[in-house]
């Protein structure tokens, strides 16, 4: 009897984003507003507040998780925060927990599958308490 492996071989895709590549090659395409821009901006704002809150609390390791989230949201230079900075979270753990539902809603409604997966992954990380 052939015994297939339990693991865990996942896809070898998604590293490339052909949709973006196609869009970049398009000549004189009319520029349209990104329908996911508001969701991305809101998620970035939350991550910046968390970074500042955890930095202020001396929890550098946890702040680094949120720096990774910010980079995934397209902010290539998450530290130092650009001015004007959002107010840091006074209770970052509370903000982590309370952000989950909004991030999941944004993921469900996102037009781009990649944006949706990124927002859902950040929500999942926050759900796990990080």
């Amino acid at each position, binding site marked *: *009897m*052939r*015994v*297939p*492996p*339990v*693991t*865990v071989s*996942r*896809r070898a*895709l*998604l*590293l490339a984003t052909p949709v973006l590549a196609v869009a970049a090659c398009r000549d004189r395409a009319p520029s349209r507003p990104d329908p996911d821009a508001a969701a991305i901006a809101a998620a970035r704002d939350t991550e910046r507040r968390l970074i500042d809150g955890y930095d202020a609390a001396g929890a550098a*390791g946890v702040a*680094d*998780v949120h720096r*990774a*989230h910010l980079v*995934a949201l397209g902010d290539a230079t998450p530290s130092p925060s650009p001015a004007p900075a959002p107010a840091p979270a006074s209770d970052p753990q509370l903000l982590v927990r309370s952000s*989950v539902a909004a991030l*999941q809603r944004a*993921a*469900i*409604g*996102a*037009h781009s*599958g*990649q944006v*949706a*997966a*990124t927002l*859902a*992954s*950040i*929500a*999942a*990380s926050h*759900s*796990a*308490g*990080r």
Partner: protein
Amino acid sequence: MTVDEALQAALGVEHQAVYGYGLAAAHVAGRQYSAALTALADAEARRDRLADLLRRRGRVPAAAAPAYLPPAPVTGATSALALCLSLEHAAEGAAWDLIAASSPNDEVRTLGVHWLGVAAVRAAKWAGASASAEPALPGRPG
């Protein structure tokens, strides 16, 4: 990856999870045993929902294999917990793919988003003291 391909891959991951959690549960006790049985029941429910989604899309759901070989031999509680963690990591990846392949506000997207959250929470619990080493972005490829 199309939605149908992502659904079939997710179904395959849940077939593995059902088998793997059954195997792991035989090697743990107490709260870990209860947690493994809860995860097993969740995987069975999700497997059935994924199969139903595929049928409604006119596809034939892939059947489970008779048995699966774990990534490492399961000989006791430690290796059983490692298997549980690997099952949730596989679930995170399958959920990411499902989300990325799906359309806004549809049933597949919603299933994937909630599944990713459940898998990340469960992975952190199985990782225990190593939870801080879990990836910042659960399920992301690469």
